[in-house]
């Protein structure tokens, strides 16, 4: 276990310190494939894949917290739902001179960030223990779910809220309805890609190193003069922003916001995606969500209970033995972990 912690800390640090890495090459391939898919196929895949990409961003928002900051959250769905409902409500009610979808996206992301910042500051400034924090995020998930269910005249309650497909506009010059799958697919990809790159770059910067330092030895970081609660709040706010952004885009893509976007079950699903994909790897979480969600889509139609059961068992296996998830397996296969092991083996 200790050796594994060493590997993960040393590897993350090396990734942070150096420039382009193998993971970046893999990311390049992943996004190239994603960009190419609508050119090669059509139909259902082009429809559903953007939703899974957004799930990927959602999983990434958790990996940011869990793998990098060492903060587990069972409440990412809360921010996702805030984003989804914000989008729905803005598009429905706002009479704005600019594209209400753009505003909706901003409000969704900002809403997710705001809820996270407030909750984070409230809890971290008191030094709330990590295990209690998990319970609080679980409660947050339930609070959001119950809230959208009960204020039904605004949110549509149990039935959810219908959301239009957004229109892509550039002032008065350009207007394209995103009703068709392919254009919508690319719009989402064009937002998802910079989001991924931005987060990766941020986590390799000074900020990212500080976050990892907090995970490695919080007391030492405090004693070195870092405002640890502030950094934790910021990283939590970032994860809320990403989740809210994903939720807002999801709402316009899937045409609805629904209480099931919040709640314990969806929050748990995010944890499973991130665990299986690899909590220490942003790319791993992103791809893991896409892969597992795709499998779920197929297997849920065939045998929902056994598939859910299998996920639960795989989750146990990941927690016990495969802590680095699919990303860890990939790293072992493609050599970067082997290289690290050699270096440490020869150390004094």
């Amino acid at each position, binding site marked *: 276990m200790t050796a594994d912690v060493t590997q993960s800390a040393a590897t993350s640090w090396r990734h942070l310190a150096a420039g382009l890495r193998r993971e970046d090459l893999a990311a390049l391939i992943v996004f190239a494939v994603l960009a190419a898919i609508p050119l090669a196929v059509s139909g259902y895949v082009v429809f559903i894949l953007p939703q899974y990409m957004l799930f990927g961003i959602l999983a990434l928002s958790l990996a940011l917290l869990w793998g990098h900051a060492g903060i*587990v959250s069972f409440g990412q769905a809360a921010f996702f739902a805030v984003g989804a409902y914000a989008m729905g409500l803005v598009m429905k009610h706002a009479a704005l001179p600019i594209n209400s979808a753009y505003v909706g996206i901003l409000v969704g992301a900002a809403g997710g960030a705001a809820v996270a910042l407030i909750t984070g500051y409230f809890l971290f400034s008191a030094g709330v*223990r990590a295990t209690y924090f998990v*319970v609080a995020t679980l409660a947050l998930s339930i609070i959001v779910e119950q809230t959208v269910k009960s204020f039904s005249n605004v949110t549509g309650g149990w039935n959810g809220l219908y959301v239009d497909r957004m229109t892509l506009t550039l002032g008065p010059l350009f207007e394209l309805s995103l009703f068709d799958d392919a254009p919508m697919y690319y719009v989402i990809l064009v937002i998802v890609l910079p989001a991924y790159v931005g987060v990766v770059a941020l986590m390799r910067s000074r900020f990212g190193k500080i976050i990892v330092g907090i995970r490695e030895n919080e007391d030492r970081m405090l004693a070195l003069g870092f405002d640890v609660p502030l950094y934790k709040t910021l990283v939590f706010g970032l994860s809320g922003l990403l989740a809210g952004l994903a939720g807002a885009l999801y709402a316009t893509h899937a045409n609805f916001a629904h209480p099931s976007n919040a709640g314990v079950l969806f929050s*748990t699903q995010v944890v499973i995606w991130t665990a299986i994909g690899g909590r220490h790897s942003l790319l791993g979480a992103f791809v893991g969500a896409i892969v597992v969600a795709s499998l779920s889509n197929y297997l849920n139609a065939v045998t929902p*209970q*056994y598939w859910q059961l299998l996920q*639960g068992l795989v*989750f146990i296996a990941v*927690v*016990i033995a495969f802590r680095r998830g699919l990303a860890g397996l990939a790293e072992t296969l493609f050599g970067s972990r082997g290289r690290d092991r050699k270096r440490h083996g020869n150390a004094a």
Partner: protein
Amino acid sequence: MEIAVSVIADTILITLVLALAAFGLAIIYGLIGVINMGHGAMLTLGAYFTWWLTQHGLPFVPGVLLAAAAVGAVGLLFEHFIIRHFYDRPFDTLLLTWAFFLVATEVIKIVFGTDFRNVASPFAGAVDLGIYRVPAYKTVIAGLSILVILGTAVVFFKTTLGIKIRAMIQNRDMASLLGLNIAAMYKLVFGFGAFMAGLAGGLIAPMFSVDPYMGNTFLVRSFFVVIVGGIGQLLAGTLFGSFAIGGLETVLALFSDQVVAQIAVFFIAVIVLRFRPQGVFSGR
């Protein structure tokens, strides 16, 4: 006057039912520091086992006891094969017990189906106290809750076994050096906590319709009971915490609806968690 009596009566009943439901969690977290995220699932299992046994002709009381024992056994198996390797890593036990919830829920769905089930209440109707009619069954449960909690407290504080367990909690290494079998103690506590959860589930079953997720509503509430009341304060903490959470919910529900009341209580509980994470009663 009547409203006051009904509020008081409701509050007492809800407090005690919630105390019973939270007790298993309080035991496990308070004594061995494991946040059992599978607590709700154990409750649900207790309810389903009770349903199955009563469906097959067993009377209610033996049915509940057997169901609770079965859940206790399941808990013991889970402890033995998985949990006991992770006691020094609280995060992992949290995730693994959550995985227990996932797996158990799916198994329930596979074995018992997803339809709502019903367990007939052994004491139907209400007791007329003159000013207020108290639901008979709920009253019995409330009484049992007091018995169970007091009984456990007696064992904990007055018996040799209780002393051993308390010694182990105070100083695990020392207790081990003194020859106490730590592994066995942990098993006992975990199994007993599971048994309690199963018992609560079986007893509560007639009050709600039984579905695969029924235990979950009690999961977060139970956490808040333990956090507000005080970790490790099994008697006073559980009762006070239940009173705070249950009572607050009842009172708030008078002014709005049940859902809003629940949201408000969660809000307040999170606030308490922040300002006094060790609970009201904790001596630590």
